[in-house]
């Protein structure tokens, strides 16, 4: 059934009607050589008959040859005055398709004004064609018209299911042993549609469809049968379908061994919103698939702390700079590399671990600049990163990144610390992005577990880590700055005879006490001290944040207006940053990956939002600065002076010694 507005109750009834209808239909009708749809209605006027016939021909012409030959029924078409106002059409139990007569006159007159609001198909004629295709798609889906090789697999899987039970099934049979539909219970279709197999679920799929953003028609989310029917409408009628939903387009094309001849030119590149929030950088990005050199499994190593001992799973897309041929040199094009990272989106200052366990936070796919991710882990959290090339074909790499772009625009999941964390999300993305059996067989909920499984399947090139310094040099390993700081301190201590015993003691000194030593530093030591000053600065900021946060969270008082206001601004800042991980909220039109019509608007919107965010951040900054203690404030300023002073000293020494100066 197809509705223009969709009351929930009616939807339920309609589904049952179709199910009942089809089981009898398929066995009763005599065999024909191919599908025929007949309009049999004596009371229609000539104009009505002609318009209907034209509609029917256009719909049939759009159908894939395979569907026409397989669905060899005679189907009767009638205009019915009895359908509910909101219903556009319905497939009846006796094999008839009914169209709502309320649209007949408008169709004859070519009147598109009467088109129900909120539809994606452009004209009433197209809308009614889509209705016919939708209902025929239900018939086709019900008919178990599997291609020969798939039929063979399903038979063998059903046999194994009987003998081994659901637990003993091999990977290729997961979700395949009890199939009833041509398309709508195919595991591949389901994962592209947003019902992926659960990790550890042995083929059982997720109950909720979290890929609900930027849908052409929310009705598709009702259940997989409706999803198939709605998507066949767009696959067959919308030349942009292949641009907007490339994964599903490829799936349907492969199934039918055929693709619609009219295909639009897609807007160049895969659009994404850069979550890095770099003021100097364009937020709206465009990823050129042809420039993907490799995809790496990027693992933030576990640290000592109780819970992050699991590490964090990400993917790194090694993009080549524009114009550079694909090759190892692209590893050096760091500013073009992107990190795909599933994170919980937290829009509250008072983050709760309990909420992380019970699924309160959304799980979203962030697309971030590599340098930011590396800095965040190595310099702030003192965790090292491994970047291990995945052994995938070029096609698999492209399909994986394309799939990620689709998720970025369509997906808004729920974060569960144990069952739907970064490792689980990354594994699901790898499964649906590469469509490889060996990855489908993997089950794990931890980042290190995923690395082990990928290694076991010989999908990781771990040889890149064998030579540690070479790995650092090539960017296969990013070391935590903790060790660097220690090393720098050891050098300064030795050269300057510092009395402090360890780096912590040095960083704990007042900035002024440290700067007393600067004059004695030669070039090498000054470089070491500069790095340490930056460490001290970061440490100082974190201390201040702790102070402010503690005051806000624990000592919140009604009368502390400044604190409450700043807290409110902070919350606003967090909320406003939501579009970075859920860019779909920026656009009201179109579906799937944004195309030409939306890109222009997107660019303007993202620029505006970026400015706004930045303005807010500056405001919060000013407020926060007013609130910190004089002592902290002085320390920060002194620390900044130290950095400036060391920078100047390095330049001075450099000039004096007459060394190489870059233009």
């Amino acid at each position: 059934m197809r509705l223009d507005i969709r009351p929930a109750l009616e939807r339920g009834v309609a589904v049952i009607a179709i199910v009942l209808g089809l089981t009898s239909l398929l066995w009763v009708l005599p065999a024909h050589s191919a599908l025929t749809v007949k309009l049999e209605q004596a009371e229609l006027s000539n104009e009505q008959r002609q318009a209907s016939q034209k509609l029917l021909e256009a719909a049939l012409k759009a159908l894939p040859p395979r569907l026409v030959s397989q669905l060899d029924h005679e189907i009767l078409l009638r205009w019915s005055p009895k359908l509910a106002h909101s219903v556009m059409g319905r497939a009846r139990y006796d094999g008839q398709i009914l169209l709502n007569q309320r649209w007949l006159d408008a169709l004859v007159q070519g009147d598109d004004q009467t088109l129900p609001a909120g539809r994606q198909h452009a004209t009433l004629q197209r809308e009614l064609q889509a209705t016919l295709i939708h209902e025929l798609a239900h018939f086709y889906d019900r008919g178990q018209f599997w291609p020969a090789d798939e039929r063979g697999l399903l038979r063998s899987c059903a046999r194994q299911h009987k003998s081994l039970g659901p637990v003993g099934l091999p990977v290729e049979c997961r979700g395949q042993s009890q199939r009833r539909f041509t398309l709508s219970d195919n595991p591949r279709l389901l994962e592209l549609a947003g019902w992926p197999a659960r990790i550890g679920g042995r083929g059982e799929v997720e109950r909720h469809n979290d890929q609900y953003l930027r849908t052409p028609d929310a009705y598709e989310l009702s259940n997989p049968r409706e999803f198939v029917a709605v998507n066949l409408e767009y696959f067959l009628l919308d030349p942009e379908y292949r641009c907007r939903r490339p994964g599903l387009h490829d799936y349907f094309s492969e199934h039918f061994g055929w693709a619609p001849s009219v295909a639009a030119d897609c807007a160049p590149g895969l659009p994404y919103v850069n979550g890095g929030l770099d003021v100097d950088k364009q937020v709206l990005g465009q990823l050129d698939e042809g420039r993907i050199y490799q995809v790496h499994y990027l693992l933030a190593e576990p640290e000592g702390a109780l819970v992050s001992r699991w590490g964090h799973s990400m993917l790194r897309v090694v993009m080549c700079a524009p114009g550079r041929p694909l090759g190892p040199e692209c590893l050096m094009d760091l500013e073009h590399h992107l990190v795909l990272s599933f994170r919980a989106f937290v829009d509250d200052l008072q983050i709760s671990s309990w909420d992380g366990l019970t699924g309160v936070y959304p799980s979203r796919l962030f697309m971030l600049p590599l340098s930011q991710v590396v800095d965040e882990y190595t310099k702030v959290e003192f965790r090292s990163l491994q970047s291990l090339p995945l052994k995938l074909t070029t096609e698999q790499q492209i399909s994986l990144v394309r799939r990620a772009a689709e998720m970025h625009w369509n997906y808004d999941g729920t974060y569960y610390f144990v069952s739907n964390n970064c490792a689980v999300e990354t594994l699901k993305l790898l499964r649906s992005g590469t469509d490889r059996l060996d990855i489908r067989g993997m089950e794990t909920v931890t980042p290190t577990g995923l690395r082990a499984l990928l290694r076991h399947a010989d999908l990781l090139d771990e040889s890149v880590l064998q030579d540690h310094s070479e790995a650092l040099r090539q960017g296969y390993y990013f070391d935590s700055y903790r060790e660097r700081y220690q090393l720098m301190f050891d050098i300064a201590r030795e050269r300057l005879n510092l009395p402090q015993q360890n780096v912590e003691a040095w960083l704990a000194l007042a900035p002024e006490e440290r700067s007393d030593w600067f004059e004695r530093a030669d070039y090498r030591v000054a470089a070491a001290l500069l790095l340490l000053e930056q460490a001290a600065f970061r440490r100082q900021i974190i201390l201040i944040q702790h102070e402010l946060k503690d005051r806000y969270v624990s000592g919140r008082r009604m009368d502390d207006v400044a604190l409450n206001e700043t807290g409110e601004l902070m919350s606003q800042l967090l909320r406003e940053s939501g579009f970075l991980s859920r860019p779909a909220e920026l656009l009201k039109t179109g579906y799937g990956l944004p195309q030409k019509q939306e890109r222009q608007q997107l660019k303007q919107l993202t620029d505006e939002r970026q400015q706004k965010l930045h303005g807010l951040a500056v405001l919060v900054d000013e407020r926060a600065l007013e609130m910190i203690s004089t002592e902290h404030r002085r320390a920060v300023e002194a620390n900044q002076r130290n950095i400036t002073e060391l920078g100047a000293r390095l330049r001075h020494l450099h000039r004096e010694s007459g060394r190489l100066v870059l233009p």
Partner: protein
Amino acid sequence: MKIRSVILAAGLVGFSAMASASSFIGTTNAVGNVLVNMAEALGDSTASTFGSNKVVLDARDDAASFVGSDGQVRGVNLEAALGHIRHQMPELQATDMQLAEAILAL
């Protein structure tokens, strides 16, 4: 002296997600990370061609580590910057150390 840029705000956002979340939920809020980059940008660089180049600027921490450790620590950002400079100035005769020092003095 005024503290430049969005250090605190960004850091605060980061903090809310980082201190508890990243250790527990295994994640960090995107906005939070501006903190680190801002801290880097504090040492002003002179107005030279390479001094405004991102590849070179991103290599300053690596260059400091390289110089400070007398060549022991050699990160990928430095590697990328060395390649970039040599590509731009093919006639340049300079050792890695000389170039690292020059980057640091920009």
